[in-house]
């Protein structure tokens, strides 16, 4: 566990700098190497990686398993789409409004932190479903089944994003910014307190911490991250429909975090690549691809390898010893 865990945690280590540099260079050069199709696929991986990271702020740091993150993601996407399409609001206002809407919903759904364990899972699942139901049934406002279509490309003044490559760089920049902020957050006293609550809530309480407040704050921040992903998602797809708020999105986001390595910075992103890659690949030749995804959930959970990042850490640790 020594080498690579210091590599992931201690910010000053030279190995970490090299790894970061190599990954960054790869990410920057990617559109030039891969062509528009893969550029677009990887943009999608980044967006869902961000959503998975938002889920993992609760799961990996605070130990809360939320099944309502698709709601923040979707409400934010709907807000942007409705503002842009129906009211011709420019991107510079619509995008922040989307993030705000999703975060406000997070302030409301944050009530869920009054519960723990199974209750938290069930309550968040039901809350998420309420949003799906509203999107689906309130068709006069949300467009019902077909949702909101013809969302324009993001633009600042006359500058419009026209190619997949341009959009790729925007998503990359947002993702890196969020990841940088996230790594600072988890290393801060607040992040430490969250992990303390995860490993022993009563102990933290007796130390004078207020777990409920910390968890509420983490919940809202996590909703904020999911909302950012939602804004990117609607500009990526150029439409939004109730599928974006379905339970499947929430479940897949948590699966991404678990597959890639919960509690790590890169894990959710790696998980996003694996889950989306698998889904897109399987759906090209097998009709029952949802069943295959279900089987993958089960297999991953039963064998529980601690995610890809955990696996690499163990591998490196074995070589070093």
């Amino acid at each position, binding site marked *: 566990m020594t080498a690579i865990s210091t590599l992931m945690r201690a910010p000053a280590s030279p190995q970490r700098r090299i790894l970061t540099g190599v990954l960054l260079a790869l990410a920057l050069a990617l559109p030039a190497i891969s062509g528009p199709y893969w550029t677009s696929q990887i943009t999608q991986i980044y967006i869902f990686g961000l959503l998975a990271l938002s889920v993992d702020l609760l799961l990996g740091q605070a130990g809360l398993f939320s099944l309502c993150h698709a709601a923040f993601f979707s409400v934010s996407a709907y807000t942007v789409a409705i503002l842009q399409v129906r009211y011709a609001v420019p991107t510079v206002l619509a995008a922040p409004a989307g993030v705000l809407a999703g975060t406000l919903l997070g302030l409301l759904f944050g009530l869920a932190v009054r519960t723990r364990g*199974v209750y938290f899972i069930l309550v968040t699942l*039901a809350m998420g479903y309420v949003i799906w139901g509203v999107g689906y049934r309130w068709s*006069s406002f949300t467009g019902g089944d077909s949702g909101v279509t013809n969302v324009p490309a993001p633009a600042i003044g006359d500058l419009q994003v026209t190619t997949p490559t341009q959009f790729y760089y925007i998503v990359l920049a947002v993702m890196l910014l969020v990841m940088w902020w996230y790594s600072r957050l988890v290393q801060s006293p607040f992040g430490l307190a969250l992990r303390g609550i995860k490993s022993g809530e009563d102990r933290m309480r007796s130390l004078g911490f207020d777990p409920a407040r910390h968890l509420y704050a983490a919940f809202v921040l996590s909703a904020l991250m999911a909302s950012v992903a939602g804004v990117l998602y609607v500009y990526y797809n150029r439409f939004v429909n109730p599928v974006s708020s379905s*339970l499947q999105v929430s479940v897949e986001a*948590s699966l991404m975090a678990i597959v890639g390595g919960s509690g790590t910075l890169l894990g959710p992103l790696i998980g996003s690549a694996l889950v989306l890659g698998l889904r897109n690949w399987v759906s090209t030749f097998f009709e029952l691809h949802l*069943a295959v995804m279900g089987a993958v959930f089960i297999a991953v959970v039963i064998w529980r390898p601690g995610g890809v990042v955990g696996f690499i850490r163990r591998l490196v640790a074995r070589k070093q010893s």
Partner: protein
Amino acid sequence: MHSFILQTINGISYAALLFLLASGFTLTFGLMRIVNMAHGGLYLFGGYVGLTVAKATGNFAFALLAGGAAAAVLGFISDRFLIRRAGEDHLSQVLITVGLTYIIGDVSLKIWGGDALKLPVPVWLRGVVELPGEIVYPTYRLFLIVVGIAVAAGLWLIYRRTQIGAAIRAGVDDREMVSATGIHVDRLFIMVSALASFLAGFSGVLGGAFLTVYPGAEWEILVFALVVVIVGGLGSLEGAMIGALIVGLLDAYGRWLAPELSYFVLFGPMAVLLLFRPRGLFGTANMT
């Protein structure tokens, strides 16, 4: 006033259906600490099997039994070979049973197609009944209320008045003590789990006859059943009864008064409970 009474009966009949599904969920959790999200999948599967049997034999009673039995077998197999492997970890249980629901849903879609299918019911259940106050009401939905009350009464009697029920209640409170007294907890687990799965499949057949069976029904009904359990309190049979009534009635009034926002009505009882009684009306402290 007329529509209010009509909606109230609608709510009670939906409550009867929700209770059938939620009671299995809540008892499985109470006794075994297993969160089985596949209850919705078993509901769907039972509904489809019941549909096929009803079409082949023309007998609704056969359909009910076949739907229940098919779900019980599927539930038993998945419990033995998959869910057990998750151990006590609720996160793993949820992911495994959600995965299972995807498999059930997708395979059912392949077999039975994507259209909403209606289960045929016997002639004597097809008509309407005239209730006092000039209310004309579908016979089938009254039948559903009768079945719901009968099952609830049966379950309650078993749960409160028999030795098996006493063992189950003791198991909900403290499993180690129950096995220490020499009761085969494992046999108890199998019984409760099979009964819960049977009820899920059974309710799928009952529900399929008026809500139809369609892809996605597994999640829709599951969420309603979960809200019932959240409101009533995990592990409590009485909680499932009261919770089902609250959710069923609120849903009926919501659909009637604000059809587009009816799902939002579900959020109401949950929010109130979270503020005042986070463990539900009948929930106890050891249920987490």
